[in-house]
């Protein structure tokens, strides 16, 4: 049995927002709402959901780049929820992040060598020479030419920039990589290369991934288990195969049904969910999905469904699941 590497317990992050600019009513927007998830050593947990569901906020809160409002984060057996910056530093070595926009996440004034080697410098690892050798090894490992070390990010294509970002994230030999939409900005033909690379690196470095994407097909390819988020809450979690082929929550069902399959004989019909995600600060009472749900009843308005077991390692938060 593999061990749990990362665990969030009722993790909550809220932001104060105004309903309207200039003196509108102040409300609390709960971006991440009592989320309990776990990532095991060397495994991938996928996180899917549409814009505004809180998946990126969850990632940044886990990294402690946002201060949690409530709940706790346990990493490798240590509660890191309230650690100060100094105590956090050794933890940060072990969890790194890969971002959506590779160019925006790389400093354009630094060379590839400086970008990939920077984490080693910050964490005072090795001599200058050792660091240079490590950078070359990393670049080669992610499929770049070690001869490119003196070039700048702008000289590379989007896919290559993402490889640079991945090399940097691996420099400190982390145990957990949080990938936030790592292929969403890439061309289709490059996407597959990066996804394959991430899977190879996982085996080689025994990495655990928290893999965040709006694309459920990409997430299913990458992940053993998937959590589905809607308006800050996890509404379903289970094995990828279960989530994709036998989803239990009506939202997950709608999400899967809406995927435009690259197969003209399987066109998405009218059955999709109606309406739109409610505005920030207008979270419906009870079940947040009820305003768009085909199964909604009066009970859903008053009683918030909790995650409960619906199968082997499979949980859903719906009164009717």
């Amino acid at each position, binding site marked *: 049995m593999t061990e749990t590497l990362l665990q969030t317990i009722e993790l909550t992050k809220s932001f104060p927002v105004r309903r309207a600019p200039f003196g509108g009513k102040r409300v609390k927007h709960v971006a991440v709402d009592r989320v309990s998830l776990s990532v095991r050593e060397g495994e991938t947990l996928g996180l899917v959901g*549409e*814009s505004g569901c809180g998946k990126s906020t969850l990632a940044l809160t886990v990294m402690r780049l946002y201060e949690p409002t409530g709940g706790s984060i346990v990493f490798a057996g240590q509660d890191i929820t309230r650690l100060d910056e100094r105590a956090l530093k050794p933890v940060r070595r072990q969890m790194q992040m890969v971002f959506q926009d590779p160019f925006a996440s790389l400093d354009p004034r630094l060379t590839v060598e400086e970008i990939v080697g920077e984490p080693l410098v910050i964490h005072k690892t090795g001599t200058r020479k050792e660091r240079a050798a490590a950078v070359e090894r990393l670049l080669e490992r992610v499929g770049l030419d070690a001869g490119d070390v003196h070039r700048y990010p702008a000289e590379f*294509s989007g*896919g*290559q920039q993402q490889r640079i970002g991945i090399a940097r994230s691996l420099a400190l030999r982390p145990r957990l990589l949080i990938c936030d939409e790592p292929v969403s900005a890439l*061309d*289709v*033909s*490059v*996407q*597959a*290369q990066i*996804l*394959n690379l991430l*899977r190879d690196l996982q085996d080689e470095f025994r990495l655990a991934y928290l893999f965040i994407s*709006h*694309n*459920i*097909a*990409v997430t*299913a*390819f990458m992940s053993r288990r998937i959590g589905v988020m809607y308006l800050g809450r996890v509404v379903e979690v289970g094995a990828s*195969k279960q989530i*994709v*082929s036998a989803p239990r929550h009506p939202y997950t069902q*709608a*999400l*899967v*049904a*809406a*995927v*435009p*399959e*690259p*197969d*003209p*004989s399987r*066109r*998405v019909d*009218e059955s*999709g*969910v*109606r309406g*739109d*995600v409610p*505005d920030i600060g207008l979270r419906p009472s009870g079940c947040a999905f009820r305003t768009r749900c085909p199964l909604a009843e009066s009970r859903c308005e008053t009683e918030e469904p909790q995650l409960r077991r619906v199968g082997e390692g499979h949980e859903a938060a719906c009164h009717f699941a």
Partner: protein
Amino acid sequence: MTKPLLEVADLKTQFNLEQGVIRAVNGVSFTVDEGSVLGIVGESGCGKSVTALSIMRLVEPPGRVTSGKALFHDGGSARDLLALPPSALEDILGNRISMIFQDPMTSLNPVLTVGYQIMEPLRVHRRLSRREARDEAARLLRRVGIPGARERLDDYPHQFSGGMRQRVMIAMAVACKPKLLIADEPTTALDVTIQAQILNLLRELKRELGTSVVIITHDLGVIAQIADRVAVMYAGRMVEEAPVGEIFGTPRHPYTRALVASIPRLNEWHERLPTIEGTPPRPRDERVGCAFEPRCPYRIPRCADERPSLVELSAGHACACWVAGEDAQGAR
């Protein structure tokens, strides 16, 4: 029998930049039939959007359409959109042909109410009175699925969500019942459940109004959902054109084949995804031979020296590839 609505022949558009000339569209030809949906698919920089902008005469300096024809058949006559004087063009664009873009916010005017913006083409092109135009605008908003349509006419674009704004754009675009709708990545900025709604709406409108659609996207999933025919572009040229079923079922060009194979699909469980080696060419790289040659697993010496042109391999299925062409001949 199908009737052609738009015939584009040998379209070339280039951008004269300080660093050199970029041939964004380099000899593209295609036909859109009446009442049908043509999907143009390709990766960033392949020239798919510039193709649409060229037809709409929206290319601005330093860009320039340097050759080609775009014959638009309407009311018994055919007019070349690329040669029409601006006054004649105004009668067609926004009226007989309209366009929707990826980001509705860039095409909606933020300081005018959506009602005003939908009413404008109705008053200009269809000469409706204020009251008639307002009634029609409300009807259109209701048709594209905006709740409380009449009240929302007085709202500004920022008061709508992304999906709702895209609906407003579609309402504007179909206000004059155009013969042709050109949609450039219309669902790319939207969430998947909203995307499904918008694709459904486009299909319904096509059925109701008989409008032909050209949809431009990088997303093969979207293409499979809505297109009747598909044109695949690579490096400013068309490399394959075929009915949608053949593009996904029996693609002939190595690029199309690799592209279709490399998408992760639901419920197919691979250890690895088939990939295309290398990266798409930069717009400035020009080759004598086939642009896909450096990345192609099937390349033969001829591919580097000579560019294959688009030839019909079977009825309605054209492909620009030496190897696929020989295979097709061998099969005969």
